[in-house]
């Protein structure tokens, strides 16, 4: 995948914050599952069903350790962060948020961590408050503390920003929110492949991950929830798997985590997700962070030295995301021109339109790095940008 030519040039893939490429072990796991032991899980008593069930549950086991959850019952498989946030908004939100209550999100959120809360707000006549963003792309924690009150029921923020790379001080946010009596959901989409995650040390109530941003397959993610909260919450979707007994008069729901996993799940991708977490574990988050930090520092220095470049998001702690604009050149043109040189970056608002409005821009060019990227690839990016800037002046 990464060794291909695009427009006659070697591919440079810098769109990792959108989705990362997949290691061979992950791709093989998908093929092996479909070739060797495809069967529906949990109900079958035959050998294939046993094997598929074991592989499926092995992923839950790995995921529990990956984020240091207290129990496998706290790991719910979902389609990704978007579904995880919707699940919490639709179940916990519907059950526990009342008219006049407040939900707090941050100004750095992806649309997936904005819209579900807006929908809940409309339904419940609740209020949605937004933690302001400072000029450097960090959250204004002073303002956050002032937003908190006894009316705050949910605080939902990301661990790291997809648009700017800012790593948020989530431990501090969680502690303050808890003091006010609110529960906290952390969108870990941009953290999963880069940062250590320990949900018990963080003491967060919910934590969400998307496998495809962690070298895993698309269509799978995790919702972690504290057991006592998940038990209190009504189910999300009804159907098979999530029930204990069904009669026309009354249905009893299954135990955790199955209560939230209605229907046949995405078995193959869950099975392959195990291998992507193992890939990350084998490399080690420390090693990954060190490599990506080096790439980010190198790229930051080289790109910011180019004429007319302005970095958007200069927080002290960042994941490997470099977002910038170039004076007088639309991000779309830069993205298209880099593509002609085989360089894949993201341009636009990155599903964070309110944040772009805050900076008074239409969008940015975003280069985001992963373990397989190199300094030579950054040199290609810089060379490409330099040519474009000179051509356009």
């Amino acid at each position, binding site marked *: 995948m990464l060794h291909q030519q695009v*427009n*006659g040039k070697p591919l440079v893939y810098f769109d990792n914050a959108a989705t990362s490429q997949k290691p061979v072990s992950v791709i093989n796991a998908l093929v092996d599952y479909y070739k060797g032991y495809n069967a529906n899980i949990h109900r079958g008593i035959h050998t294939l069903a046993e094997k598929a069930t074991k592989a499926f549950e092995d992923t839950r086991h790995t995921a529990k350790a990956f984020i240091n959850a207290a129990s496998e019952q706290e790991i719910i498989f979902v389609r990704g962060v978007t579904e995880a946030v919707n699940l919490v908004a639709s179940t916990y939100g519907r059950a526990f948020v009342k008219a006049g209550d407040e939900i707090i999100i941050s100004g750095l959120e992806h649309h997936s961590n904005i819209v579900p809360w807006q929908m809940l707000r409309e339904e419940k006549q609740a209020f949605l408050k937004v933690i302001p963003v400072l000029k450097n792309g960090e959250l204004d924690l002073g303002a956050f503390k002032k937003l908190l009150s006894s009316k705050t029921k949910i605080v939902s923020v990301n661990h790291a920003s997809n648009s700017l790379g800012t790593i948020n001080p989530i431990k501090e946010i969680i502690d303050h929110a808890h003091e006010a009596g609110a529960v906290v959901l952390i969108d870990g989409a941009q953290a999963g492949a880069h940062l250590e995650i320990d949900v018990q040390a963080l003491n967060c109530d919910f934590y969400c991950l998307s496998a495809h941003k962690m070298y895993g397959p698309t269509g799978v993610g995790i919702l972690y929830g504290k057991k006592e909260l998940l038990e209190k919450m009504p189910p999300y979707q009804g159907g098979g798997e999530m029930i204990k007994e069904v009669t026309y008069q009354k249905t009893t729901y299954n135990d955790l985590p199955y209560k939230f996993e209605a229907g046949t799940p995405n078995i193959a991708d869950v099975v392959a997700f195990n291998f992507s977490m193992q890939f990350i574990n084998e490399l080690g988050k420390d090693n990954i962070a060190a490599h990506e930090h080096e790439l980010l520092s190198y790229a930051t220095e080289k790109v910011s030295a180019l004429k007319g470049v302005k970095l958007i998001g200069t927080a002290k702690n960042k994941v490997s995301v470099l977002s910038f604009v170039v004076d007088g050149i639309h991000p*779309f043109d830069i993205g*298209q021109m880099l593509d002609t*040189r085989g360089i894949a970056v993201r341009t636009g608002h990155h599903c964070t339109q309110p944040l772009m409005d805050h900076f008074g821009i239409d969008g940015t060019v975003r280069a985001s790095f992963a373990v397989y990227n190199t300094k030579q690839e950054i040199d290609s990016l810089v060379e490409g940008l330099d040519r474009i800037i000179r051509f356009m002046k």
Partner: protein
Amino acid sequence: MTTINTIQDEIINEFALLDGDMEMTVFYLMELGQKLPPMNEADKTEDNIVKGCQSKVWLTARLEHEKIYFTADSNTAITKGLVSLLVRIFNGQHPDDILNADLYFMHKIGMERFIGTQRSNGFAAMIKQMKFYALAFKTKSEVGS
């Protein structure tokens, strides 16, 4: 009167000189965009926008002696280049010819990637809007006559 297909063939020949080099093609496209006659700022209204996801195009049209003339602009250089090609092809053409036009030049100059990706630059929406103007002028003149 130069026909739509003659102009398309001219464009294909010009781009053929670039030998399929994508970067040069895009640079040339942007140069063409820079030569597009400027549009009145007053015409850059919400009503005149043909919106893509990342780039905006403003388009107006007028009928003179039964021929249509377009003015257009875009906030991105590449899209502006694409618009300039469409304006060059359709300007001064009869509404019927625009409505019946088969635009084949995009495939021949390696611009397929810009077509059908309405979400990113609204190129397909732009063609539709130009044909819509042609239809509107045609209907108007038929009703009027």
